[in-house]
C-alpha cells in the first residue's frame, strides 16, 4: 500500500509515456527529498537513491509501458529489502537462562522497553527478572521497581552498589531462582562518552547476553547514523528497538540504523504502557518513511 508522497511521484511519472533518463533523474530527486524530510541520514539517502537510479535506468523501466509503476515498485522493493533484509529470529532458548541487555542514548525509552519485553516474554512462558542496573539517574531504580511491581514481575535492585556489582548480583539471583530471562536496564549514555561506553562493554562482558538491544527514539534525526555506528562498534548489539512510534515522526532513523549496522529492528514501542510493544514490520515502516 503506497503513501501520498509516492502517489505524487508516481503521478508525475505516469504523465509520460515512455520515460527518459531526465524523467528518472527527476523522480529520484523527489525520492531523495522525501527521504531527507523523513530524517534518513543524507549519506544513506545518497547510497539508496544511487541504487534506485541504477535499477531504474535499466531496460525494465525505460521500455515498460507503465514506467511510473515500475519505478515506484523499484523504490518500494529497495526500501523494504533494506528494512527487512536482515530479519532473523531472536536468539532466546527455551530451557535455560537467557540474558538481554538494553542500551542507548539518554531518554530513548530503555527502562520502559525493559518492562515491555518482560511482559511480552512472560506471555510466551518465560520467567523474567528485571535488573535495575542504572545506578546513576535519579529514581531510575524506583522507576523500574514501580513498573515491575505493576506487572508482578520481580526486579533485582541493590541501591548503593556499583553497576557491575548489580549485574553480578542479579545473575546470581537469576540462577538460584531459575529465571529464564534476565533483562538488564542500563543508564542512558552518549556514544562519545568513553568512560560510559567502557562501562557498557564491561556490563556486556559480565552478563554475556544472548541479545543486546540498541534502543533508539523514532524521532531521531541525522545523528542516528553516528550513534548507531558507535554503539555497534563498541558492543556489537544484535537487535534494535525503535521507540515512540506512536508519535508522528516519519522514522527515517530506522533506515539509517539498519543501513549502517545491518542489524535487524526487532521491536517497536507504540506507547507508554507496558503492553505497547509490537514486532517490527518492514513493509509498514517503508511506507511510513516515504510519507
Amino acid at each position, binding site marked *: 500500500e503506497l503513501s501520498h508522497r509516492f502517489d505524487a511521484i508516481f503521478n508525475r511519472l505516469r504523465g509520460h509515456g515512455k520515460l527518459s533518463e531526465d524523467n528518472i533523474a527527476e523522480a529520484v530527486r523527489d525520492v531523495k527529498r522525501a527521504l531527507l524530510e523523513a530524517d534518513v541520514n543524507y549519506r544513506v539517502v545518497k547510497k539508496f537513491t544511487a541504487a534506485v537510479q541504477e535499477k531504474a535506468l535499466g531496460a525494465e523501466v525505460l521500455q515498460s509501458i507503465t514506467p511510473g509503476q515500475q519505478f515506484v515498485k523499484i523504490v518500494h522493493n529497495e526500501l523494504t529489502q533494506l528494512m527487512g533484509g536482515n530479519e532473523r529470529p531472536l536468539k532466546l532458548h527455551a530451557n535455560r537462562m537467557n540474558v538481554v541487555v538494553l542500551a542507548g542514548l539518554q531518554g530513548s525509552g530503555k527502562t520502559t522497553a525493559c518492562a515491555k519485553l518482560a511482559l511480552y516474554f512472560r506471555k510466551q512462558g518465560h520467567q523474567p527478572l528485571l535488573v535495575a542496573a542504572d545506578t546513576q539517574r*535519579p*529514581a531510575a531504580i524506583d522507576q523500574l521497581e514501580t513498573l515491575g511491581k505493576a506487572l508482578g514481575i520481580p526486579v533485582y535492585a541493590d541501591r548503593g552498589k556499583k553497576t557491575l556489582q548489580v549485574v553480578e548480583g542479579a545473575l546470581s539471583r537469576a540462577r538460584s531462582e531459575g529465571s529464564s530471562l534476565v533483562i538488564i536496564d542500563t543508564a542512558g549514555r552518549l556514544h562519545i562518552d568513553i568512560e560510559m561506553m567502557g562501562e557498557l562493554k564491561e556490563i556486556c562482558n559480565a552478563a554475556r547476553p544472548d541479545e543486546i538491544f540498541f534502543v533508539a527514539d523514532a524521532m531521531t534525526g541525522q545523528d542516528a547514523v553516528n550513534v548507531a555506528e558507535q554503539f555497534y562498534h563498541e558492543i556489537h548489539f544484535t537487535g534494535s528497538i525503535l521507540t515512540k512510534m506512536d508519535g508522528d515522526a516519519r522514522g527515517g532513523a530506522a533506515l539509517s540504523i539498519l543501513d549502517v549496522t545491518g542489524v535487524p529492528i526487532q521491536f517497536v514501542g507504540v506507547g507508554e504502557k507496558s503492553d505497547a510493544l509490537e514486532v517490527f514490520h518492514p513493509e509498514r515502516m517503508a511506507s511510513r518513511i516515504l510519507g
Partner: protein
Amino acid sequence: LGSEGSFDDDFYSALEDALISADIGVELSTNIIDGLKERIRRDKIATAPEAYEAMKALLVEQLQVHRLDEDFPPKPWVILVVGVNGVGKTTTIGKIAHELRGKGKSVMLGAVDTFRAGAIEQLRIWAERTGSEFIAQHDGADAASVAFDAMEAARARNVDVLILDTAGRLHNKINLMNEIEKILRVIRRNTPHAPNEILLVVDATTGQNAMKQVAVFNDVLGITGLVITKLDGTAKGGVALALAKTYRLPIKKIGVGEGIDDLQDFNAPTYIEAMFG
C-alpha cells in the same frame, strides 16, 4: 575570481550536505545556500574560508529572536515546562532551579507529572539537590489539581519562582494535549498573570519532527521559549534554525549534560560555531 563563478556546484553541494547533516532540513538548507550565493555575489567573496564564514553569519541571523525579560517579575514567577517524552524536562528543571538558587531566589518545584513511574521521586531528588521546596501528590493523582496545589503553596510560602514539571506527551495525542491545556487553564484561573513562562523542551537529537512538536504545543498553549537539550552529544540541533524562522520563539537555554551545572544561556554565534566550527 570574486564573482559567483569562483565556486562550483561541488562546493555548494558539500555545504548543503553539511547543513542537512546538522538537521537543518532540506527546505531551509536550500534557502541558506541561495542566500549564500547572493551574499557571495553582493560582497564579492573570493575564498572558501570567507564563504564559509558568510554562511555561518547567515545562520546566526536566522537564530536571532529577541524577547525582553521582566524588570519587575511578579511573585511567584511561574514556569510551566512541557515537551514530548524523554527530552530532558525534569533534568532541565533541576538545572534551572540550581541556577535560580545561585542567584538567591527561593524556588519551589511542582510534580505535575503524576503519570510516569518514578517521576515524582525523580523531581523530589532534584528539589533536594537544589534546596528547593517541593510539592506533589501521589502517582495517578489529577495533574491539574497538583498544579493548583502548587500555585497555592507557592503563594502561601512566598516563593520567588515556581517551576512545574509535566508528563512527557506526544503532540499527536489529543487527550494528552487536552490535559495540558486544562492544566494551563487551571493555572490561569488561579493566578491570571501565570504562567509567566511556558518552556518547550526539545531534544537536540530530534529531526524534523521538532517542527511538528513546536507547531502543536505552540498552537495549544502559546510557548514563550525553547530549551534545547543534549547538545553535548554529536547532534547539532540544526532544527533550531527552522524553529526560530517559523515560530520566532527565543531559545532560552541549552542543556549540555546530565549534571546540575550543565545548563547554558543560548548564544547564537556560539551555537553556530559549535555546529560548524
